[in-house]
């Protein structure tokens, strides 16, 4: 067989792209897709036709990335769109989030599953308010890798000085964020410099091209493989004679590693047992880790159902009815003090009530908004929620999967907001100058 089986070792990188209008985001994505052959002839033809109909003269690549009719008519992107391309090393999922309207909602949504964020700046304009906002959201959502893509270098004569100036300014600002891996790449999306291939115009730049960076950034340690967490999704109980006594707990491992023979505890009951077998998509496993979907059988016939969690005996999560969290609000209806919401966390849903808004963040400056505790659409704030049943959780900083939740409207069923757990209420808040990144 002449099989090309390289795909059997490719991995997956999810990233977001953000920038202000006209920084060149669509051009950059268009180029990544085009150069990796993810744009097809018929798609190109379709946008050529559409460009012509609109009476525009240059090929409008944003038509490729703006999906819906309403958007095309208004000429704006209003929702997160997902795009795909692959190189022999990696498959990429881009969460393309618009920079302007409903930016917080879309950026937060896109960032929630991303490994890496590309933040675009225009080399002529440098760091602007939006750069800070986008970086803050990336940091808040705990994206571990950020690329500051300094675009339109052709318009500043490929100047190393200008690039260094922007890097220095950004570094100063970003020292307040907790992003472990920040990289800087000078590029020209329009001309393709440092997008796929190294630029010949900027010999002073010794780093890799954007695509090379995306292909090689190490993401293997981004997931939590320390704290074993298995939220039960559903119970598999075949009613056939052959598998009469089979009962397995199905779910996606939210953290850590499980092996047959491990001593585990079922929460919230606190009953202990031992793992008998773990079944993955390809059969029985000798170990399973996040984010695998598996089915587990236990040695003892204990009661476990959706919303419960299996953990290792020596390493339980927090179990608390009171949580402090950073909350991003998506709804036109403002967050109500004393308001009741449905809180969905791992595989569990509970009622909760908003006890207090601690502060509201000015996402452009990273400062707290003094004297303003009203959380409206696209606002972010720190809140105290009281939950009807103890939440089995970790801080978001420790584990994205067990530290995140959404709030749902009891009546309309709309998803109203998204939260990142900081911990339990403390008597004291940090000093007024600081805005938490979700950790602590």
């Amino acid at each position, binding site marked *: 067989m002449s*099989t090309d089986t390289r795909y059997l070792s*490719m991995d997956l990188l999810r990233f977001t792209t953000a920038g202000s209008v006209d920084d060149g985001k669509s051009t950059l994505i268009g180029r990544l897709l085009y150069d990796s052959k993810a744009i097809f002839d018929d798609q190109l033809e379709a946008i050529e036709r559409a460009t012509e109909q609109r009476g525009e003269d240059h090929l409008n690549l944003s038509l490729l990335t703006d999906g819906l009719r*309403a958007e095309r008519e208004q000429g704006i992107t209003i929702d997160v769109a997902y795009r795909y391309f692959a190189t022999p090393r990696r498959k990429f999922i881009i969460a393309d989030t618009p920079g302007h309207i409903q930016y917080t909602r879309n950026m937060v949504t896109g960032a929630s599953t991303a490994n890496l964020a590309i933040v675009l700046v225009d080399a002529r304009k440098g760091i602007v308010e939006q750069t800070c906002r986008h970086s803050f959201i990336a940091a808040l959502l705990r994206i571990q890798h950020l690329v500051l893509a300094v675009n339109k270098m052709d318009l500043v004569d490929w100047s190393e000085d200008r690039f260094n100036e922007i890097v220095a300014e950004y570094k100063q600002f970003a020292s307040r964020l907790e992003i472990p891996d920040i990289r800087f790449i000078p590029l020209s999306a329009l001309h393709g410099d440092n997008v796929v291939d190294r630029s010949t115009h900027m010999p002073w730049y010794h780093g890799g091209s954007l695509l090379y960076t995306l292909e090689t950034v190490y993401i293997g340690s981004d997931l939590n493989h320390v704290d074993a967490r298995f939220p039960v999704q559903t119970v598999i109980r075949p009613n056939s004679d*052959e598998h009469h006594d089979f009962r397995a707990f199905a779910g996606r491992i939210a953290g850590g590693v499980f092996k047959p023979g491990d001593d585990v505890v079922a929460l919230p009951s606190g009953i202990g047992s031992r793992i008998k077998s773990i079944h993955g998509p390809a059969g029985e496993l000798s170990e399973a880790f996040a984010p695998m979907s598996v089915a587990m059988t236990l040695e003892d016939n204990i009661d476990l159902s959706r919303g419960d969690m299996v953990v290792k005996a020596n390493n339980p999560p927090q179990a608390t009815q009171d949580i402090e969290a950073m909350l991003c609000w998506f709804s036109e209806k403002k967050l109500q003090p004393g308001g009741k919401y449905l809180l969905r966390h791992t595989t569990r849903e509970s009622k909760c009530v908003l006890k207090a808004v601690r502060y509201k963040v000015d996402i452009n400056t990273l400062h707290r908004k003094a004297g303003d505790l009203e959380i409206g659409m696209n606002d972010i704030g720190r809140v105290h929620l009281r939950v009807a049943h103890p939440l089995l959780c970790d801080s978001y900083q420790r584990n994205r999967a067990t530290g995140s939740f959404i709030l749902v409207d009891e009546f309309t069923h709309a*998803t109203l907001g998204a939260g990142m757990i900081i911990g339990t209420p403390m008597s004291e808040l940090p000093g007024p100058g600081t805005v938490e990144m979700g950790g602590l």
Partner: protein
Amino acid sequence: MSTYHLTHLAQLEHEAIFILREVFAQFERPALLFSGGKDSIVMVRLAQKAFAPSRLPFPLVHVDTGHNFPETIRFRDQMVEAVGARLIVRYVEDSIRAGRAQEEKGLNPSRNGLQTVTLLDAIEEFKFDACLGGARRDEEKARAKERFFSHRDEFGQWDPKNQRPELWNLFNGRKHPGEHFRVFPLSNWTEMDVWQYIAQERLEIPSIYFAHRRSVVNRSGVLLADTPFISLLPGERFEEKQVRFRTVGDATCTGAVESSASNLDEIIQEVASARVTERGARADDKRSETAMEDRKKAGYF
């Protein structure tokens, strides 16, 4: 360095299985929409894995346009039997006879749009509250913004401007009576991923996906197969070509591509170097730039 590594295909597989189980857990009467095409074949395999050793906990539903390639129907029936699944078939023909749908005017009417009527009727008849589909975001740009859990109002309509944000692994399947969800576990898969998975799992697929000789007519760049549902326009003629299909669907609008790819490896190589999207061979998407979006809003798959 951590050794806990999953390939991109494994990650997609674990994600899809999670979604399938989530549907089973959050809904009372789910169904899996099954066309007999490669995406729905992958869906069935994933569903088997998600619930093993149980049988599929939901029926397969096929909305039959009547404009089929016989190979696909034969394949469908064999597969359903092998899997031991329950198959429900509802016919567009019946919707037309009952006056609930109207055949398109003109030559070679396509029944693709009419499937929506039959599908929504089936959803009402069986009170399905979640329909699993094999659609992918990479297929078409209106799908790029589709959610995994896509809410439909009581008229089965999709409101693209008012979608629920989806964050992390938290899927909100709450709804009012009469509303339902379409759920797309393969959202993050590309055509390439699907083929790679079929190769990895050694899945059987209908023979029309492999190169074969067939009589076709070239209609504005789309190669349509010689079937009882196609009549020629003046000046057109059927000619025999070596072709294969990249999707299976209504035979009046599913185009073939010239190809000599006769096994999975060759198909994977062909897809890797293809310059036309798989939907590019579908006449129904060429009707207007927003054809897909308009159909989806009305309740299409």
